[in-house]
C-alpha cells in the first residue's frame, strides 16, 4: 500500500509541470488564436502556429516575451471576407474554400499579447519548448561571425534578390528599422529564432505551415545558411 502511494505521488509530481502548462493554455484560451497541434488544419488562426514552438524559438526569448510581450508582426490578420467583385455563376463551379483572411495595420492601443507572471511564464515557456514536430533532418548551420563585407553582401541579397524587406522589418546599416509589416518583424530575430530552424524553414516551409503568405524559394544551401547567419545578427539591442 505504501509502495503504491509512493508511485502515485511520484507520477503526480512528474505530470505536474505539463498539466500546469495545459491549464494555462486552457485558462488563457491560447488555442483560439494559436494552432497548438499539427492535427488542427481546418481553421485559419490569427496568431502564429505554436505546435513547433520548441523547434523555432530560443527559450530565454520565449520566457521574456510571455512576461513582457512586444509586437512581433505589426500587421494583424482579420479572419473575415474582404471586399471583392461579385462571383459569377461560372466561378461557383470552381468555388473554393475558406476566406483568405486579409491584413490590416495593428491599432496603437491593442495589447500585443496577454502577459504572465514569472512563474506562469516559466511553466508555459517550458511547456511550449516541448512542442516539436518531426521535421525533416536539419542541415548543419554555420555559426562563424560575419565580416562587415559579408554582412553587406548578404543584406543586398536579402533585400534585392529575394525582396524579403518588402514584408519583413529589418535593420539598415545605420541601425534603423525599415521594411514591410505583413510578415513577422526580424529586428529581433537573432534573439527570437533558432539558427537551424531558419535554415529548415527556408528549405521546407511546408513542413511547418500548410499555407504561408511568404513566397516559396528554391535557394541553395549556401544562401539558406547565409540568411540564417545574417538574421542572427539582427537584435533589438542593435537598433539605433
Amino acid at each position, binding site marked *: 500500500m505504501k509502495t503504491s502511494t509512493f508511485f502515485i505521488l511520484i507520477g503526480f509530481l512528474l505530470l505536474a509541470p505539463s498539466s500546469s502548462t495545459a491549464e494555462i493554455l486552457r485558462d488563457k484560451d491560447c488555442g483560439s488564436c494559436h494552432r497548438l497541434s499539427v492535427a488542427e488544419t481546418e481553421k485559419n488562426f490569427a496568431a502564429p502556429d505554436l505546435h513547433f514552438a520548441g523547434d523555432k524559438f530560443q527559450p530565454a526569448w520565449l520566457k521574456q516575451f510571455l512576461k513582457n510581450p512586444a509586437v512581433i508582426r505589426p500587421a494583424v490578420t482579420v479572419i473575415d471576407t474582404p471586399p471583392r467583385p461579385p462571383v459569377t455563376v461560372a466561378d461557383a463551379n470552381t*468555388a473554393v474554400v475558406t476566406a483568405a*483572411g*486579409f*491584413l490590416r495595420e495593428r491599432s496603437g492601443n491593442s495589447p500585443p499579447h496577454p502577459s504572465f507572471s514569472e512563474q506562469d511564464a516559466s511553466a508555459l515557456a517550458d511547456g511550449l519548448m516541448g512542442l516539436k514536430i518531426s521535421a525533416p533532418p536539419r542541415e548543419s548551420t554555420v555559426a562563424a561571425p560575419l565580416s562587415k563585407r559579408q554582412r553587406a553582401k548578404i543584406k543586398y541579397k536579402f533585400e534585392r534578390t529575394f*525582396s524579403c524587406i518588402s514584408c519583413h522589418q529589418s535593420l539598415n546599416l545605420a541601425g534603423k528599422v525599415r521594411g514591410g509589416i*505583413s510578415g513577422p518583424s526580424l529586428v529581433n530575430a537573432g534573439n527570437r529564432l533558432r539558427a537551424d530552424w531558419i535554415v529548415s524553414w527556408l528549405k521546407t516551409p511546408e513542413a511547418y505551415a500548410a499555407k504561408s503568405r511568404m513566397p516559396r524559394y*528554391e535557394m541553395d544551401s549556401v544562401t539558406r545558411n547565409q540568411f540564417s547567419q545574417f538574421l542572427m545578427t539582427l537584435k533589438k539591442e542593435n537598433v539605433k
Partner: protein
Amino acid sequence: MKTSVTNMKKSCGNLFAAITALAVLAWGIGCGQSREEQATAPPPAQQEAEKVRPRKLESARVTENTRQTYQWYCAQCHGAEGKGDGVNAKFLTVPPRDHTKVAYLETRTDAQLFDAIKFGGLAVGRAPCMPAWGHTLDDDAIRSLVQYIRELCQCEAL
C-alpha cells in the same frame, strides 16, 4: 626649347578640353538623338513594351480561387482592391503598382505581367520590392492572376 615644350603642353591641354567639352555635349543630348527627338520620345514604360519580343499568353479564367490567391498573397502590398494600398505599401521605397490604373497597365502586355509575377520585379527591370512567385504559384495560377489584373484595371494591352 623650354618655350616649345610649354606651347606643346598648352596645345595638349586645349585639345583635352575640347574633347571633354564634346563628350559632355554628346552625353547631354543622348545616344545619337537630337533634342527634338528626345522631347517627343515615348515614356520609358512604352519604349520597353515595344522592345519586348511579342509573345502571346494563353488565355486563362478568373475564378474564385484566383481572387483568393490575390487576397492571400498580392493584397499584402497591392491592397484588397488592388489600389496599391496594402499594409506594406507605405513602408516600401517604391510604391506597389496600383492595379486599377489604366494608363500604366495598358502599356504592359500580358506576357510582361506574367513575367513580373513569375520572376519578380528585378528580373523584368522593375522594382526589387516585387518578389518572384514562380516557385509558389504554377503557370496557370499566374495566368489567371494576369487576367484578374485586367479585370481590376478594366483594360487590355494596347
